[in-house]
Structure formats: C-alpha cells, structure tokens
C-alpha cells in the first residue's frame, strides 16, 4: 500500500514570551509517521503533547521548522482541498445555512453554483442531514453542527480527512452515534483519516491503528495496530480483545505519565 501521508523528522518550534523575554518552545520534534492510503489512524496523547500542532502541520496551516511532510509523495506547502479539517468547535459560519456552509470549500476551488448546491445536498445526505440544508447553525444541535462540519470537509473530496477531537464537546450518546456514523462514512468513502482524540476508548474503537504521542517535545512514542474484527450488530467495546487493546494503549500512556512525573521530580 502506498503511503497517503508521510512525516519525516518533523520539528516545529514556536516563539513564546516568558517574563517579557522571548523563548523558543519546541512543540514537536523528530516526528516520524507514515499513514497508508485509506487507513483510519487515531492519535492519542496527554494534553499539550502537540497533537493539534501535528494536525495544523498536516493541514498546512503552519509550516514545519524542519523536516518534511509529504502527501502522496508531494510536499505540503500550505492549506489546500486535498486535506480537510474538522474542528472540535464546529467552526461553522453562523450567517450561512447548512448548505451554504458545506459550499464554502467548493467556492474556494471555483465549483459552479449549481454543482455546489448539488454536492452540498449530497454530502448533507451522506451525514444524515437530509432536509436540514436551509437551517442556520443556531437552529441545529451540537451533533448536527458537527455533521455539517464533516459534510463540509468531505464535500471538497479531500484525500486525507483531519479531525481534531471532533466529538469531545458532545454528550456521550451523540458521540457514540457520530462515531458509528463516521466509521460508516469512512468505509463508504475510503478516505484516509487522521483522528485526534484524548479518549482511549474512542481511539481503539475508531482506529485501525493508534499512534500514542508523548509531550515535551511531542513525538510518536508508540504505534498500536488495532486488529479487531467487528461483527455487525455486536458491541465491539465488550469484546475481550477490545479490553486488551484498550489496556495496551492505556499502559503506553501511563509510561509517558510516569516519565514526565519523574522529570518533574528531578527539576
């Protein structure tokens, strides 16, 4: 399988102000990661481990200080519609209806008006929002807003779908139904997905592979293949194999925590 996404020795430094003096802060360092085409990769890590920086880098919203990011072999030079991002806070334009929000990305690439509307409606159907095209964001629930955001991301037909804790702001039931919906959409579209989360269960449930990130500076400290074979109609989460994988990710995160605690103790 060819890699959809390759990160080679990526490093990102930020300038931060510390007591009026500017200091250098390394968000991610020596970050290597290869995501095969069509894979659903979940990324977990404690807060502040550089997960969002990783996503911004792949999205092209920020440039690496050093290292390379390749999308199907081509270096990423900035944001483009071959990657699309779904944010935790939906980021819908409140003055646009659901349909017009989905059209936003299509406008940037100059899709004609009629085709835009058709594509928008198709993608709203795909995320289960048939009949809600003319609603404004404030008329939609949190889960529905996130569905619109997913439709908007998919409408530009990206090769990689980037998701930054997209379900973290939702209640448990909505989250579970959207997780299943996302898996259904992923299977239907075959997109490569990079899904950032801080939930171990969510990572193991959604991902074909889970990347564990450690902080200061952020890097991939563990990669765990999720070889669950979900039987339709059965609760994968209650499968003993799910529990083992969950524990495996948990231990990996626990090691990071132990390490950072000793670091703190030494300081």
């Amino acid at each position: 399988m060819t890699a959809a996404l390759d990160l080679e020795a990526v490093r990102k430094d930020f300038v931060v102000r510390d007591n009026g003096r500017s200091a250098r802060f390394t968000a991610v360092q020596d970050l290597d990661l290869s995501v095969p085409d069509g894979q659903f990769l979940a990324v977990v890590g404690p807060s502040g481990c550089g997960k969002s920086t990783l996503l911004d880098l792949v999205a092209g919203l920020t440039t690496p200080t050093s290292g390379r990011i390749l999308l199907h072999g081509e270096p990423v030079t900035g944001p483009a519609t071959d990657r699309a991002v779904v944010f935790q806070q939906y980021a819908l334009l409140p003055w646009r209806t659901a349909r017009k929000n989905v059209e936003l990305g299509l406008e940037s690439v100059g899709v004609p008006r009629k085709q835009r509307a058709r594509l928008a409606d198709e993608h709203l159907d795909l995320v289960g929002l048939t009949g809600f095209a003319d609603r404004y964001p404030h008329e939609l629930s949190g889960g529905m807003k996130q569905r619109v955001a997913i439709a908007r991301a998919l409408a530009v037909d990206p090769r990689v779908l980037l998701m930054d804790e997209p379900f973290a702001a939702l209640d448990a039931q909505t989250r579970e139904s959207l997780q299943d919906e996302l898996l259904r959409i992923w299977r239907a579209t075959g997109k490569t997905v990079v899904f950032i989360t801080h939930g171990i269960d969510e990572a193991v449930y959604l991902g074909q592979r889970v990347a564990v990130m450690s902080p200061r500076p952020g890097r991939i400290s563990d990669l765990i293949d999720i070889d669950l074979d979900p039987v339709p109609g059965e609760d994968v989460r209650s499968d003993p194999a799910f529990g083992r994988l969950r524990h495996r990710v948990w231990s990996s995160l626990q090691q990071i925590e132990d390490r950072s605690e000793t670091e703190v103790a030494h300081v």
Partner: protein
Amino acid sequence: MSSSTLEKAAPTLDPAPEDYRRRAGLTVDEVQTPRFLPALGRVLRGSAAILAFAALWEVAPRIGLVDAVFLPPLSTSLGALADLVSSGQLTEHLQASLTRALVGLSIALATAIPLGALIGRSASVARFLNPVLELFRNTAALALLPVFVLILGIGETSKIALVVYACFFPVLLSTITGVRTVDPLLLKSARSLGLRPLQLFTKVTLPAAVPTIFTGVRMAGAASILVLVAAEMVGARAGLGYLVTAAQQNFQIPAMYAGIITIALVGLAINAVLLLAERRLSRWRPTS
C-alpha cells in the same frame, strides 16, 4: 382502545417546545394571535407615554401653565405644520436637509468601511492609529464647523463635509473593531478549506463584522441629523435647521415647533431604516 379516547387524549399533550420541533425538522406552526383587538391594545400600550406627552403639550398652554405665546398648544403647532406642508415649504426644507444628510452619510460609509477594513487587517497599524482616531471621533464635530466654513465656504460643501466628518469616525472605528474581533477559529477553518486571503476577507471577515459595523452606522445616522441641523442653524438658506431658526427670528413660533417636530420625525425615520437594514443583514442571528 377506541379511537374516541385517542382523540380525547391528543389535545391534553403538551406541544413540543418550538426549538425542539425545529431541530427535529418539523414545521413550526406560528401561533395565531386574535387579530384586531389585542393589536390595538398593543399599539395603545406602546404609545401611552407619547399620548400623555401630547396631551400635556396641548393642555398646559391652554390652562395657563405655560405662556401660550412661547409654547403654543400642540394642535396649533400641528396646524402650522399642515400649512408648511400645503405651501410646499416643508418639502423644500426637508429635501434640502435629507439630501445633505444622505450624501454625507453615504460618502462616510463608502470611505470609512473600506478604510476600516484595510486598517483592521493589520494589528500593528490598528494599534498605531487608534489613539488619533479616538481623538478625532471624540472631537465634537460642531467645533470644527468654523474650520470647514473657513476652508470650504458657507455653501453645501461645508455642511456635507461636516456630516461626513461626524459619520466617518464612528463607522471607521466600529469597522476596525469588527474586522479585528472575528473569531480566529472561523478564519482558521476557512483557511484550511483552501480559501485565499481575498476570499477569506469577503466570505468570512466582512460578514462576521457586519453586526459590529452596524453599531457604528446607527451612531453615524443619529450624528448626521444632529450636526446637520446645527450647521443649518448657523448659515443656510434652506433646510430644517434653517426653518427652525428663521421661524424663531420672525416670531412664527408655531412654525418653529412644526420644524422641531419634523426634525424629531426625521431622526426616528433614519433610525428605523437603519434598524431594518441591520435586521435584514443579520437574519441569521438567533432571535432572543
């Protein structure tokens, strides 16, 4: 269960809350209010204070509470207003004032919004200019009237320039604020969808700034009439401000009040038009 019990049971169910039904995709039936009488009641309640004020104005001069020469009863003033309307004088003055106010306001909007948007794009430029802009905005426009007259003469130009000045700064400052305070996440997500800088500006920044810009536009609308009337009182041969001073100097007191009433109505009308425009442009906002 028979169908009759079902029919009986149905009306006792509480109707679902409106927003729930909206979210569930059901049509929300507008609740029909009985037409005529409650509407009349609402109008009466809304205008009770106005009516009381009008009654006071009518009665006070008649019972000798105030000097009827200096404050004639409302009906006398309205009579004078009717005379001004039928003689065509009011139209002339109203037209003169409205033209000046609208030309001035339009020039201010056409320049202040693009300029504010431009300044707002750069945080450092906005910070650098802010003190001087605040200084200009808080300089009473009327204090500059002699300057405008000195430079531009006493004709139309100086009056329109004064209106432009008074309207320009509130709109400029609110545009800068509006453009600067756009939710960064909206910009970030639009950028991630491949929107280029100009598209970001027209599709995200500007629409997001509209409510803030409109605060300034409404202030400008009020200011335009305010400074214009004052300018017309100082030096003009037509206009509502001129009408009021000329009537006072010729001791046509009812006509003076007729002019004042007209100015009040024009102010209300401008505010109403701007409110309507604001509502049209921000229909997407949740009604509270």
